[in-house]
Each structure stands twice: as structure tokens, then as C-alpha cells.
């Protein structure tokens, strides 16, 4: 469904140097596949996500979604950012409806759809509240509803849980898997956390740092539905240690 074909991205820095963020990245993502992007800081994970989202232009190569080359943001793609980025002046319901309003696709049924999404993430009863009245985890839930409200077939998530505490993070990881099972979508998920990536993904794309290249694509065969506790499975261990090796190198993964 998403074809990333030999994509490179350069930025021009302030002193006019060209900085390569990504070089020759090729990935082919199937419909309704869950793919995680993992790598050290500055390896271009978020950049790759923005290239797929059409928020940044590619320097070389191309991104093709359903046969269409991506040149601008696509209506059928939902994005969840690192921070919840809710509009402080709008209620939770209006925040969730925001993409529909911007794209002039509000129908009579839209508020009901938004409410059922809020119910799906356990926020029913909070429609009229303002973002500042919500905890960080609840804000992130509302942000996920907003990304789903126009029923996109692709969901791009840029380290969505990184600002949350560990317990909320696990809770939302489970919830995301449930939503994905109930409303299958193609998900591209950027994270720093190796266990999180293995818990969520069908395949984990490991990027090497500066310039970002694909080190390896690690398939995760842990059976679904997944839950916490599966970290003990051999397959889980194999996948996490492989990713760790790819990021840190073999000799640095053991403590002497």
C-alpha cells in the first residue's frame, strides 16, 4: 500500500551546508500492516514519517500510496504527534472534529462518530471538557481520536507515547492494539522504545544514524492478540535482541 522507493532527504542548514537526513530508504508496506520505525536520535525516523505524510518534500526517490505519488498531505492519512497538540480553545469534541471541519466534511452524523471514538478510548463524558482539564494520557487519547475521525486508511504516529508516564504508556499501547484490531489500518509508528516496537509491530524497521539508512527490517512473529507478559516469549526476546544488536552493535549489548 505504501511504497517508499529509494528515498533520500537532505536539509539545508543555516550555514548552507547540505545535511543528509535519509539516504536510499526503500520500504514496501502492506495494507493494514503495523510497522514501527526504531533508531537512535537523529536517524531521520520522524523525517521519514513526514515524507510519507506529505508534510515534507523528498529530495530524491518517491513515496507512492495506492499508486499515487505523495506530493502534499493526503486526506486519508491521520497523524498523531509527539505531544497531543490539542487546540486549547476548543472542547474535546471540537478538537476531535477539527480535521473534518478543516476539510469541510462535517455531516450530521460526525458528532456521533466523534463520540463513539471517544467512547472507544474511554473518554465518554469528556466531550465538553477543555484540553487543560484533561491529564496527559487523556489528551493523547483525544489526539488519537482526532487522527481517526475521518476514517483514514493510514495512521502515522510520531513517538505518540514518549511524553507519558510508564503506566499510562502501557495502557495506551494495549488500547492502540485494540483499536487497530477493531478498525484495521496501515500504521507507521515511530518510537525510541525497542520493547514497545516489538509489542506493537508486524515488522520493525531499524534505522542507522546520520545519515539515516535502513539497517535491517526485523519481522516480529509474536502471535496476536498480544499482551504484556509476552515479553518472556522466545520470539519476543529474539526480536528485541536483534534490534538492540543492530542499534548498539554486538559487543555493546552485553555488560561486562
Amino acid at each position, binding site marked *: 500500500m505504501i511504497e517508499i522507493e529509494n528515498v533520500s532527504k537532505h536539509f539545508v542548514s543555516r550555514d548552507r551546508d547540505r545535511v543528509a537526513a535519509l539516504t536510499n530508504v526503500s520500504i514496501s508496506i502492506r495494507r493494514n500492516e503495523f510497522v514501527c520505525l526504531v533508531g537512535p536520535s537523529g536517524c531521520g525516523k520522524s523525517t521519514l514519517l513526514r515524507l510519507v505524510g506529505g*508534510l515534507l518534500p523528498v529530495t530524491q526517490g518517491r513515496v507512492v500510496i495506492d499508486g499515487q505519488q505523495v506530493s502534499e*498531505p493526503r486526506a486519508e492519512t491521520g497523524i498523531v504527534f509527539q505531544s497531543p497538540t490539542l487546540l486549547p480553545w476548543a472542547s474535546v469534541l471540537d478538537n476531535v472534529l477539527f480535521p473534518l471541519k*478543516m476539510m469541510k466534511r462535517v455531516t450530521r452524523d460526525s458528532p456521533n462518530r466523534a463520540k463513539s471514538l471517544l467512547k472507544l478510548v474511554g473518554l465518554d463524558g469528556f466531550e465538553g471538557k477543555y484540553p487543560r482539564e484533561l491529564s496527559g494520557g487523556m489528551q493523547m487519547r483525544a489526539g488519537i481520536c482526532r487522527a481517526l475521525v475521518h476514517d483514514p486508511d493510514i495512521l502515522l504516529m510520531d513517538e505518540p507515547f514518549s511524553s507519558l508516564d510508564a503506566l499510562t504508556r502501557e495502557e495506551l499501547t494495549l488500547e492502540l492494539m485494540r483499536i487497530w484490531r477493531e478498525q484495521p489500518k496501515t500504521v507507521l509508528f515511530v518510537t525510541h522504545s525497542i520493547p514497545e516496537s516489538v509489542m506493537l509491530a508486524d515488522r520493525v524497521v531499524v534505522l542507522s544514524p546520520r545519515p539515516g539508512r535502513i539497517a535491517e527490517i526485523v519481522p516480529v512473529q509474536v502471535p496476536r492478540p498480544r499482551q504484556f507478559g509476552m515479553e518472556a516469549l522466545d520470539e519476543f526476546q529474539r526480536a528485541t535482541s536483534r534490534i538492540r544488536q543492530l542499534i548498539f552493535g554486538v559487543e555493546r549489548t552485553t555488560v561486562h
Partner: protein
Amino acid sequence: MQPAGSVSSSSALSAPPSTESYITEPRPLPAWFVEVVLPIAAIAALFLVWEAACQFFAVPSYIIPAPSAIWKETSANPGNVGWHTLVTTKTVLLGFIVSALVSLPLAVLLTSSPLVAASVYPLLVLTQAIPKVALAPILVVVLGTSELPRVVVTFLVAFFPLVLSIASGLVSVPPELIELGRSCKANRWTELWRIRLPYAVPFIFSGLKAAIALSVVGAVVAEFVNADAGLGYLIQTSTAFFKVQLAWGALIILSIMGIVLFQIIVAVERIFFPWSPGIDKPPV
């Protein structure tokens, strides 16, 4: 046998934890007390000290009149003082409204592109470099002795900080909110209208508060140079005739005007934009 003191202390230790905590938290005072009663009491105290000092040290009233003397002289002719107050209020409000109407589009223009900013910004700085008191008599020659030069001076004094705060509000939108707008296929106008302007609301109000205070300053400066009415004119004429109490009275009315207009803006922000965090609350 144990001394009595240790017995009582051991019984205190074994006692169940009472509702009284060891750490006494300061009880928060009610909002009406902190926001209304305290400020008024502080100002009343100032006037009391002023009155007492004038009486005690027998300060001659042509140097610093006592509040009672100011009140006596100012309230002697309420129609006249009221008329001057009205004239000044009109100039202040007209200047303020023009500032607001000019500043908003100007700030949007300034933030629209670096090229526009680079060419417009020096002109703005130029208007601020000109001393307004020096400009006022020249404006009278250009624009005539009507109210217009006074409104223009008021505007020139008041608008600059407003432009700066609106512009900084428009550019301080988090990049992720802009990306959200772009991912929802917003064009520049919807981005401005649905994201940047609402985000800038607290900044706009911060600028409006500065602008209303400066509008009072600007109107009085303009009245000093050219006017036949207004509180600035009243101060000038009454000091010229050594009616110092009346000049002080006009000064106090100007201060009250400034406070009331400022509070009106605070109230508008609270009523119409309750979600606005109010970025310039006093640092407590």
C-alpha cells in the same frame, strides 16, 4: 519513675494521627478578597498616609495638596471636570480603536513572509524613534487643530507594542499545530483563521492591555500640545493659574480612567476567552 514530661510525650506518640497535620498549609484566601478588597485597601491606605502626611508636616497645598483639598476643589465644578474627562476619554478610545484596527492586519502582514518583515519593520521602528511630543505640533500644522492630530498621536504612542505582541503570538504557534493544519489540508487563510489567530488571543490581549495604558499617555501628550478641552488641557491651564488641587484632581481622574479601561479589557478576555491562560498575570 519517669518524669511527667516523658509520659505525656509518649502518649502523644501513641495517639492516632489527628486531622491536624504537622505541616500547616496556608489557607487560600477567597478570590474576591485577593482581587478586589486587597487592591482597593492598598490604594485607600496610600491616600490615608498621604492625607496624614500633608496634615502632620503642614505641606503647603501649592506644592503637594492633601487628598481632601484635591477632592474639594475638583468636585466644586463637576460639570466642567466631567466635560474634560469625556473629551479625553473619547480621544483615548478613538486612538485605542485605531491602534487595534491597524495592528492586527499589520502583524499578520509582518509575519506573512521574511521579505515583508524586513521591509516593513524598519518603518515601524522609525515611527517609534520619532519623539511624539516633538511630532505633535508638526501634526497640528499638517492636520489642522481638530481632534484628528490628537487621535493620531495617541495611535502612534499606543500601537507599536500591540503589533509586536500580536506578531509574536502569530509566530509562536507550535510547529506541530501548523503541521496538523497542513495535514488537514488547510490553506494559508484557514491556517491563520483557525489556528494562528486563536492561538494568539492571549498575546493579543496582553498587547491590548499595554495599548490602552499607552493610549491614555498619548492622549494627554497630544492635549498638552494642542487642545481646548480635555484633562491634559485642564492640567496645563490649572497649573498656569496655580490651581494645583485641580491639576492633581485631573491627574487622579486620568489614573482611574487608565485602571478602569485596563480592567474592562481584562474582563472582556475573561468573559469571551475563558480558556485563555492570561499570559501576563502578576508573578505570585
